[in-house]
């Protein structure tokens, strides 16, 4: 199996404070979601999921039509749609617009899509000031990091981290009270809102029949971002489309509940175009940047097209036993957790981070809680196959294997498998599994090697297996030692004694 950047994983796993923070935060979100979608709270939950899945499937399968409909309606209301093939085009449009309008300060609300295209860095490099306005995002921006979690960007930081950060970056007193910290951020950001030339937001949904973007939030920074500056630019992936405003009766009931357990976030904005004749405030200009950045390529893949149904609730992260141990920053790209493991190889290519689809126990919890019923384990398996296909024939054994003993070599080879070795290994496995006597023999041999346990634990392996996945597995866990008698032995003894 291909390996990831292990040293970073070990740092996260060895940090008890961080482990507790991730576990507590995701655990709370899991609990809130469970209460919110429980049958007594939302009897129609499963029906809503089924409908959401049908609607997303239909929209994605007919996306060209809905893109055209959406665009026509945006134009009808006085806005403009801009298509961007990649990050460079999206950033280029914004930079040109800002330059043309003589803008300097851009306020931004939380958006994974703008993270995806690295908007802040790119605009910053061109001399514009870009300020994140969601409290968690603002903290992460000040710390020069990327969001730790789709809905809880600063999940990994404590109030003390924030106090030091604010002191260092804002020149304020070291304030550890969370309310006071929120107040400090409010005061700084309020001035930014009132002075900003352009507001950049993401979008949770693009509504084709209305030409509208729909955005959910709790803080009010999205309402300010989209309403205070004279120009509002929404940046969204083309897959965020839904056919009709009426379909929000389905999606809005699912999104906030799946994300945080709320029935609705504090604010849900349905925005269609610049302010109209007579309206007192709101932006004079309204743009929707529709981003491809690899999405049409995924569209062409019938088997994995459903990856595009995602509405970014984050529930799969919270329920994932892997995410809950390794956290968000060990994933190589902006999207983390199961959906990150599915999206990243498809956007960046399977050879880019080939270990990613393997970083899953395939327990299926993610698919159980996905509000649009994306079959994430199926997609992970399909991507594993893609990785193996991409690697077949190109595998080179690591140099360390050549120096090792023959047994070590066999082990290392089997467990750093390329396509051919993997096939061979599984053929061997199939043979053993079909021959009970040989299976038993192997079991006894393994027990001899691992030692005879009496309720104890195995913390390390004999030298020949000191490499490979078992050793890696044991580096963070203990394995229960095998019992002194195995099932077959007990079975035979009991038969002999006439018990069974």
């Amino acid at each position, binding site marked *: 199996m291909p390996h990831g950047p292990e040293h970073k994983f070990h740092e996260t796993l060895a940090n008890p404070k961080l482990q507790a923070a991730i576990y507590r935060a995701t655990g709370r979100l899991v609990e809130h979601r469970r209460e919110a979608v429980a049958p007594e709270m939302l009897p129609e939950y499963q029906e809503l999921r089924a409908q959401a899945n049908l609607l997303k499937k*239909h929209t994605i399968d007919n996306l060209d039509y809905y*893109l055209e409909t959406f665009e026509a309606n945006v134009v009808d209301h006085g806005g403009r749609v801009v*298509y961007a093939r990649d990050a460079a085009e999206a950033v280029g449009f914004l930079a040109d617009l800002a330059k043309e309008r003589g803008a300097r300060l851009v306020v931004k609300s939380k958006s994974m899509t703008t993270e995806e295209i690295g908007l802040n860095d790119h605009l910053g490099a061109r001399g514009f000031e870009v300020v994140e306005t*969601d409290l*968690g995002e603002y903290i992460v921006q000040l710390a020069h990091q990327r969001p730790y979690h789709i809905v809880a960007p600063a999940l990994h930081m404590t109030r003390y981290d924030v106090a030091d950060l604010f002191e260092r970056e804002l020149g304020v007193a070291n304030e550890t009270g969370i309310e006071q910290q929120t107040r400090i951020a409010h005061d700084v950001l309020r001035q930014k809102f009132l002075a900003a030339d352009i507001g950049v937001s993401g979008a949770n949904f693009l509504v084709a029949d209305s030409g509208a973007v729909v955005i959910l939030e709790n803080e009010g920074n999205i309402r300010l971002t989209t309403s205070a500056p004279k120009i509002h630019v929404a940046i969204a992936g083309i897959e965020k489309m839904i056919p009709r405003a*009426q379909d929000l009766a389905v999606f809005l009931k699912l999104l906030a509940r799946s994300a945080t357990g709320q029935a609705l*976030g504090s604010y849900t904005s349905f925005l269609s175009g610049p302010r109209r004749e007579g309206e007192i405030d709101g932006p004079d200009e309204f743009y929707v940047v529709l981003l491809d950045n690899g999405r049409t390529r995924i569209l062409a893949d019938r088997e994995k097209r459903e990856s595009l149904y995602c509405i970014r609730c984050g529930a799969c992260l919270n329920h994932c036993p892997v995410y809950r141990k390794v956290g968000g920053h060990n994933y190589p790209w902006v999207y983390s957790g199961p959906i990150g493991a599915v999206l990243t190889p498809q956007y960046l290519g399977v050879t880019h981070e080939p270990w990613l689809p393997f970083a899953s126990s395939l327990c299926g919890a993610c698919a159980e809680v996905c509000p649009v019923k994306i079959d994430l384990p199926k997609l992970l398996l399909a991507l594993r196959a893609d990785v193996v296909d991409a690697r077949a024939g190109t595998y080179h054994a690591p140099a360390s294997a050549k120096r090792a003993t023959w047994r070590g070599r066999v082990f290392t080879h089997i467990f750093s498998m390329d396509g051919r070795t993997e096939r061979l290994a599984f053929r061997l496995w199939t043979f053993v599994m079909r021959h009970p006597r040989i299976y038993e023999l192997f079991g006894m041999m393994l027990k001899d090697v691992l030692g005879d346990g009496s309720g104890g634990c195995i913390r390390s392996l004999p030298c020949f297996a000191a490499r490979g996945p078992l050793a890696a597995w044991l580096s963070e866990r203990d394995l229960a030692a095998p019992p002194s008698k195995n099932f077959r032995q007990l079975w035979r003894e009991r038969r002999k004694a006439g018990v069974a």
Partner: protein
Amino acid sequence: MPLENIVEQARQALGRRAGQSPEVPPPPRIRLPEMDAAARLRRFFEAFEKLSGKTHLAATREDACAYIEQVIAGRRAVASNAPLLRECGVTALASVRSGFTEREALRTECAGAEIGITGADYALADTGSLVLFSSAEEARMVSLLPPLHIAVIRRERILTGLDELFDTVPLPSDRSSSMVFITGPSRTADIEQILVRGVHGPGEIHVVVL
């Protein structure tokens, strides 16, 4: 901008032709529960209070105005141009400024005010939400910049929930450039998941039902 490109690319990826109509979409799923006026009001108040909002059922317009005057308690307030507020006498209260039609003036006023008073087009009973369309009567900033928001709404505007709203207003974009659902006060839990109210929007919210 390469507009045709992406749509065309999507079309090819999906194996569709230009101008080809889409498959028939699944019908909208709208369920309208039976709920009488009293139950709607009760449900709405329960949900609103659960979000730490304060509720007041006003018997008369004078009563509504008296409640609002008592909440304002002499602090600086700004009111939207909703006719209902004028009818109740809210705009005539000493510390309330109203009648703004110009963006900059309104924004400056809202940024300095401690209380924003608006009407609401609808309320949603099951989520405790207020629904506000932006218009000449309702500016966006009044319910957003001041730290305390008071909304006044007529009892018959309480709908059961999202389904009834989208049944009543199937195309919100026909009415306004902005429809917003306000569901409780502005809040954040971004630091250590500790709840703090009033981060960018109002931390305190009242509703007066007439």
